[in-house]
């Protein structure tokens, strides 16, 4: 297609250039023709003037001869007088011809005329002295001169006429050639003009087609082919006008995929795109022809229903859509569960215009997402709370800048000795109005947002700097930090961690990064490579909440790990025989791979004992110690952590 266009463009260029040159040639021929005609006219006029003057010479010579004859016959002076008048009568004309005719023979003729004139004067002189013999002699010589003159003039006239003929023949030949050339060039130009016309028409059709395509593209989403935000807005406006006129209602569904970022980050953008296309297809399938399905951007979709009975009917439609949507999707061999949240708003109920309709659907969608409701119809009573929720991210961003985040540290101890093995950093938000917020109150929203990477870096910096301060205070406390799946996908993470450790002079082995098992379910090669890069810096890697995912043992064996933290759901029931066996199996697996096996969620003595018996090497939980601020932990350790831990351990056991 492109090649065709390029070739057509070259064809047009070539045709246009040939056409221009051809037109220039035609113009040149026309100009030449005009000039030639003008020159020919001037030349012919000049030649005619010359011919006319030769005619005059011929007349004068003839007249002189006739008057000579009359002179010889005349009996008196009156009869002889005409010759006297005629002698030299051709002289002025000859002078003109000498100026205007370039015939070489003219000089000869001029000399002969001079001889003729001289002879005639000699004759007149002889007559004057009454010498008949001399008169006769000069008359005969004059006749010879006259004969010579007349024949020369005749030759000259003939030559002049021939010159005109030859000149006109040449002009005619030149004109004929010019006509042939003009015909050929004109024909070629006509053909080229036709080619240009056809090509231009083709261009015009192409441009119109492109304009249609551009118009379509401007109103539709490139990835999914459904309407985009602009077209949706346009349709919403139209629908509102119609509904207002008819007294009807318009429904708007706003849909946002759950965990789409994780799909994108773990499976890659290609799979993410496929998921979006699948969603678009399913929305289309579940919608009426009169509805408009649109993609607003990212993983956000909308469905406009121009005619809807009431909010309840809209909610039913939303539920039907959600049911149709929430089926597993096959994305190039990978099966993904599709989950979404749908917000519904209705015009004119609570929404007076298009802007409000969209805003209210957005708020409802946020409510649905936050409350994991699936679908939610806009309720003005919850609007203020939702608005608050929407402002969370802005506040959190400010919190990062103003150091409102703080870390609490929960110690981990060796099961065998009770000695402190390290601490896990757990983030809290010292909110200026709402007080100390637990992670569950803000982290889910953060992890869904673009702030997640920035937040991880911030927490890492806090933990590493604290490790530095402890080290400076004589405490060698390894620190664990939880890292989300999206941060694991961040290729700059190893570099960030390495730079922090270098900046604060903390030994890499004193930092453990914990990733949930779910976070490690992305592309195995990329996960292994990323963990390898982290370990290359000397950082320890831990798998958190182990047992909640679906990692195969073979995949687990390929992971470069230092530690496995068994999920608290197993530890809580470790006293049961079945859970005990599972924990024991994991512990043996860890032993085989030289992993530390951490039992988290140690809440009481029996759990502590059972976990230790099952082979867990490190214990963590409220039974050991609550998460506490760094200074409290330092005080606890300074007060004799090992003895106290053991004491606490024994006290709880006892």
């Amino acid at each position, binding site marked *: 297609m492109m090649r065709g266009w390029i070739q057509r463009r*070259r064809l047009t*260029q*070539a045709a246009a*250039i*040939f056409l*221009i*040159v*051809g037109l220039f*040639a035609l113009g040149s021929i026309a100009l030449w023709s005009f000039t030639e005609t003008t020159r020919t006219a001037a030349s012919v006029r000049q030649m005619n003037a010359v011919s006319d003057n030769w005619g005059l010479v011929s007349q004068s010579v003839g007249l002189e001869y006739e008057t000579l004859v009359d002179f010889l016959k005349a009996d008196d002076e009156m009869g002889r007088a005409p010759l006297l008048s005629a002698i030299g009568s051709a002289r002025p004309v000859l002078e003109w011809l000498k100026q205007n005719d370039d015939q*070489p*023979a003219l*000089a*000869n003729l001029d*000399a*002969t005329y001079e*001889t003729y004139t*001289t*002879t005639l004067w000699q004759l007149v002189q002889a007559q004057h002295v009454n010498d008949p013999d001399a008169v006769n*002699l*000069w008359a*005969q*010589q004059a006749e*010879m*001169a006259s*004969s*010579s*003159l007349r*024949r*020369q*003039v*005749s*030759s*000259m006239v*003939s*030559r002049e006429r*021939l010159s005109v*003929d*030859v000149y006109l*023949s040449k002009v005619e030949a030149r004109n004929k*050639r010019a006509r*042939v*050339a003009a015909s*050929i*060039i004109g024909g*070629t130009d006509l053909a080229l003009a036709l080619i240009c016309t056809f090509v231009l028409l083709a261009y015009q059709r192409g441009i119109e087609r492109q304009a249609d395509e551009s118009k379509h593209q401007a109103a539709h989403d490139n990835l999914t082919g459904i309407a985009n935000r602009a077209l949706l807005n346009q349709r919403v406006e139209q629908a509102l006008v119609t509904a207002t006129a008819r007294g009807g209602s318009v429904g708007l569904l706003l849909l946002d995929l759950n965990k789409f970022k994780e799909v994108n980050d773990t499976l890659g953008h290609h799979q993410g795109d496929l998921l979006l296309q699948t969603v678009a297809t399913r929305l289309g399938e579940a919608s009426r022809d009169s509805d408009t399905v649109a993609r607003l951007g990212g993983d956000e979709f909308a469905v406009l229903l121009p005619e809807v009975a009431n909010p309840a009917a809209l909610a039913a439609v939303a539920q039907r859509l959600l049911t149709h949507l929430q089926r597993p999707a096959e994305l190039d061999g990978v099966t993904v569960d599709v989950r979404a949240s749908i917000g519904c708003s209705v015009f004119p109920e609570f929404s007076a215009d298009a802007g409000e309709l969209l805003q209210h659907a957005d708020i409802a969608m946020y409510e649905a997402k936050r409350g994991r409701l699936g679908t939610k119809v806009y309720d003005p009573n919850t609007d203020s709370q939702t608005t608050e929720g929407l402002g969370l991210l802005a506040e959190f961003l400010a919190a990062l800048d103003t150091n409102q985040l703080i870390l609490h540290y929960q110690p981990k101890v060796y099961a065998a000795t009770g000695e402190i093995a390290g601490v896990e950093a757990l983030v809290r938000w010292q909110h200026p109005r709402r007080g100390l917020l637990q992670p569950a109150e803000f982290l889910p929203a953060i992890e869904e947002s673009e702030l997640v990477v920035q937040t991880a870096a911030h927490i890492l910096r806090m933990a590493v700097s604290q490790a530095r301060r402890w080290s400076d205070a004589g405490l060698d406390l390894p620190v664990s930090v939880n890292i989300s799946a999206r941060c694991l996908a961040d290729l700059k993470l190893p570099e960030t961690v390495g730079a922090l450790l270098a900046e604060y002079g903390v030994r890499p082995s004193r930092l453990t990064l914990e990733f949930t098992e779910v976070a490690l379910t992305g592309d195995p090669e990329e996960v292994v490579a990323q963990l390898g890069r982290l370990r290359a810096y000397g950082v320890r890697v831990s798998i958190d909440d182990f047992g909640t995912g679906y990692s195969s043992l073979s995949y687990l064996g390929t992971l470069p790990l230092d530690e496995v933290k068994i999920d608290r759901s197993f530890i809580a029931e470790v006293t049961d025989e079945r859970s005990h066996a599972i924990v024991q199996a994991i512990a043996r697996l860890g032993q085989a791979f030289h992993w530390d096996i951490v039992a988290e969620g140690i809440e009481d003595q029996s759990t502590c004992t059972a976990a230790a018996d099952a082979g867990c090497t490190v214990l963590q939980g409220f039974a050991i110690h609550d998460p506490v601020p760094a200074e409290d932990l330092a005080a606890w350790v300074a007060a004799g952590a090992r003895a106290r831990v053991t004491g606490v351990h024994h006290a709880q056991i006892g």
Partner: protein
Amino acid sequence: MKPIIRYGVAATVVLAGTSLAACSSEPDRPRSNKIAVVVVGAKQGFGAEMMDGFTAGAEQVGGVEVRATGTDLVDGPRQVEIFEGLTATHPGGITAFSFTPDMLAPAQAAADKKGIPLIALDTPPSPSSNVELMVANDNVELGRQLAATIAGQLPPTSKGTIVVGTQSPGAQVLDQRAQGIRDEFAKLLPGVTVLGPLDTKQDPGQNLKAWRLLVKANKNALAFLGTGEEAESLVEVRRETKGSWLAGAVTSAPDALLAVKDGDLLTVSAEYRTEGMVAGRLQARYATTGERLPTGWIMVPGLPITEENVNEFLTRDASTTSSNAWSRTMTDTILNDLKKYLRPLPGDS
């Protein structure tokens, strides 16, 4: 080169080529071994010499059938008829000597269209004839040579009259000789007045009468010169009047040579035989080998004849064989160094 410039150049070249193709054509020339020469004045010395020279030149090449023909006296219309007949019988090439080239031009143009190679002999062809080769003297130069020869016999301070006659006023060749005579006298003898050229008629009897009259009318004239073969009349008048004036003509006829030897005449030879021989050889070469005729004017130089060198000419013209041998040497000289003798046609330069 940028594409747009390349396209522009290509377009110009193509259109220019198209235009040129439309503007030029080259007729295919058939080849035949039958060639001819047609002259006026075949019974007069100059015409006969041209025909003899042409025949000899063609035979020197060989392989051709030659026809040499013409009108007895100067008869333009009859020559045209003969020429047109030759275009049918002798398409291998036709050489023509005419005193009326304009009259012959249409027939020559028609022959050229048929592809017959043409040569104009001694007289410039008419521009409309399409004849591209002329073998001829420089007639102005011949006139100059004759005048210089005469002037060499007169004191530079001479004053008086010199009378010039011509048998065919208006004939370009003779007019040019008259022009050369006058120009040279004006240069060498500025005190002399040149009369004429006056019509001294072709017919020998009338020519003799004309010269008698002119001599009588201009009894004090220093010299009487004819532009053509008027030696016989001039010599006769000089002898009967026992005149001391000088007589001059352009001829190499045997009687004229004897008159030169006797001191009654000074003359210049136009070398008509050599002219004919050059043309004959070129026509024969074309007919037999396809060697194309040169384009332009092959100038055959004239030779002044005085008492000092007249014996050489008498010896040369003692027989046709010796005349042809002389002309053959000159022809070889000319054709072997053609560049030296080749000029643009009059009016083409």
